């Protein structure tokens, strides 16, 4: 502030040198006024949401500019018999082509972009309740009871003494306005895409087999492999709507494992740059994804390790490009950002694999939304972590930036025996000062609470029925039960 005041004074003197003789008075007034800054009510959540929308528009704008040069089937590919220039070689052998395959984009869910079709209310059936987060129970939350046949086994003294941590979550930000209905999305696979691609393939005349004789054909999956040094294999799951990319191992040098050191780990900026370049090179549709961030959760373990030389440092780092739907970020049920994941080998500075590329065709259905803010506050205050009746310790955690997003989860449909991928509007809250809290055993950086009312019942139980841990005694050298004969001897 002092520097700012001086700057203002110098400017005033440059315009009106006569002011200099009043410097003390002027400086006092400036300082007094500086303290009364009006609140412009700047909203970080608004800025973040707008940022996603703006960058999504940016990608759309540039994708349209590139569209004329992008074609799923390139006509020069037809002339591979004459000598290949293209770097892709189809895995299925092709003898000859009766007619050139036409170029152009085949419009379907694999064309990229996000499509949402409206369905009737509750169209996806009952939504299964979510429960507490036991996925990352680290050293802070293991429940060490085991029950076999009604009794309690005595545990080995080799097991570490468990720590049961209760986390008290508090937050000061407001909860976004709640709605009586929430629009749940279900990701749809598009079999039309498989049929369309089959139609193209069936025009190929193989001497070995007449593909045209396959009735009502649709492509389930296909794989393209790069015939080049350090090439990749692209697998397209037409039914599930996924694309994954892996190293074409036959084209990569055999890798002997070399434990990386911490200095081998690339800086985030370089990792993201390598991942960005790869995605751009292969024309992967990123319109619905936020910029990449590096998954660095392993670093906490490294920082807290007593002997860092024994700590396993991963040689592959992951850059995550979070999915964004309707301007809102998508998280997995337990708080990890959900989206495209690019794995980068630190020592080789190359991408090893990419997963999470998927079609974005959804149907949307209305469900009853939770409007009781107090109920949501109570659930947020437990952060979806287990609550123990007699905790070993209690840790206070502050949540910040409560905002709207989506929670992805898989819901099993008993009628069809399949799982549906649904995206539920959710409250998202980030753990403040996560690096410090992570050392207390909390692994989730983000708390995700669904806003569909019928999914919340289980979460309230954790407060009403805290977990009681059965006492245990360290096992002696020989277990008690082992001293007793298993069978009564005859006689």
């Amino acid at each position: 502030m002092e520097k700012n005041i001086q700057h203002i004074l110098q400017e005033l003197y440059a315009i009106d040198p006569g002011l200099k003789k009043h410097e003390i008075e002027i400086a006092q007034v400036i300082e007094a006024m500086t303290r009364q800054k009006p609140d412009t009510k700047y909203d970080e959540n608004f800025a973040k949401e707008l940022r996603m929308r703006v960058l999504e528009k940016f990608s759309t704008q540039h994708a349209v500019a590139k569209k004329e040069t992008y074609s799923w089937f390139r006509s020069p590919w037809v002339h591979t018999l004459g000598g290949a220039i293209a770097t892709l070689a189809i895995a299925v052998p092709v003898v000859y082509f009766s007619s050139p395959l036409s170029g152009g984009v085949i419009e379907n869910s694999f064309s990229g972009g996000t499509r949402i079709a409206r369905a009737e209310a509750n169209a996806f059936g009952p939504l299964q309740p979510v429960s507490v987060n036991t996925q990352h129970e680290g050293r802070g939350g293991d429940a060490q009871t085991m029950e076999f046949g009604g009794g309690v086994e005595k545990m080995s003294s080799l097991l570490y003494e468990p720590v049961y941590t209760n986390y008290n979550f508090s937050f000061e930000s407001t909860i976004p306005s709640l709605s009586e209905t929430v629009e749940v999305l279900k990701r749809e696979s598009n079999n039309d895409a498989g049929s369309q691609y089959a139609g193209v393939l069936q025009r190929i005349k193989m001497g070995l087999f007449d593909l045209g004789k396959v009735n009502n054909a649709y492509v389930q999956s296909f794989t393209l492999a790069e015939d080049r040094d350090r090439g990749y294999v692209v697998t397209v799951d037409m039914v599930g709507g996924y694309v994954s990319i892996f190293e074409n191992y036959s084209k990569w040098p055999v890798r002997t494992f070399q434990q990386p050191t911490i200095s081998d780990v690339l800086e985030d900026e370089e990792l993201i740059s390598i991942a960005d370049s790869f995605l751009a090179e292969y024309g992967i549709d990123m319109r619905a994804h936020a910029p990449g961030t590096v998954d660095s959760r392993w670093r906490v373990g490294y920082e807290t390790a007593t002997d860092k030389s024994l700590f396993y440092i991963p040689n592959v780092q992951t850059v995550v490009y979070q999915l964004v739907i309707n301007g809102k970020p998508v998280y997995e049920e337990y708080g990890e950002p959900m989206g495209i994941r690019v794995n980068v080998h630190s020592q080789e500075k190359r991408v090893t694999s990419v997963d999470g590329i998927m079609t974005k065709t959804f149907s949307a259905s209305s469900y009853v939304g939770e409007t009781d803010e107090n109920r949501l506050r109570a659930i947020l205050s437990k952060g979806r972590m287990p609550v123990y009746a007699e905790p070993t310790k209690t840790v206070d955690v502050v949540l910040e930036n409560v905002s709207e997003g989506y929670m992805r989860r898989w819901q099993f449909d008993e009628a069809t025996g399949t799982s549906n991928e649904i995206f539920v509007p959710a409250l998202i809250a980030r753990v403040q000062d996560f690096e410090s809290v992570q050392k207390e055993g909390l692994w989730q950086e983000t708390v995700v609470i669904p806003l569909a009312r019928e999914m919340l019942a289980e979460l309230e139980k954790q407060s009403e029925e805290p977990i009681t841990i059965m006492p245990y005694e360290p096992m002696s050298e020989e277990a008690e039960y082992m001293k007793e004969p298993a069978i009564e001897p005859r006689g």
Partner: protein
Amino acid sequence: MFMSEHINYDEYMLRAAKGDRNAFGVVYDGFVKKIYDYAFFRTRDKQSAEDIVADTFTKALERISSFDPGKGTTSSWLYRIARNTLVDEYRKKQKYASMPEAYDIPDHVDLGSSLDTKEMLMRVQGALQKLSEKEREIIILRVWDELSYKEIAEIMGKSEASLKMATSRALKSLRSQIPMGIYVCMFLAMSGKV
């Protein structure tokens, strides 16, 4: 993340014009709050200010290929878009107070318990009214939005020298009409420093 003095935003804008999405993100992060504050000071309404910000960056995207660092900085380019958007909205909707009234002391400003301060500010308001609309806007852009005279010149399409002269004339005129404290308060009223 707000505007950093160490980032060359013109370079990032040029990269964005060539398709670098992350580069545009850097520019966005650097200016979103400044543009929001600029819009808020002139509309006194959060929702309206947010609409102006959204329109500004949308238009910036649409015109990104026209950005020319030889004709002005990224800062003045964005502010120019925001200013034009604001004027368009004002004309279309008649939604806001008249532009001159937008420079009034906002009701929500906490003037504290100092009656002297409040009286000073009230007299500053009166003094501002004595300036022409153009002179008032120059001073507000300098004091409220902390833009340099060079940037103001680029936004308003004037020369830097003429702007400084206009400012000097306006301030001298005010000095003769108001006490020293109020003169300085006028310079700081409701600015980013206040």
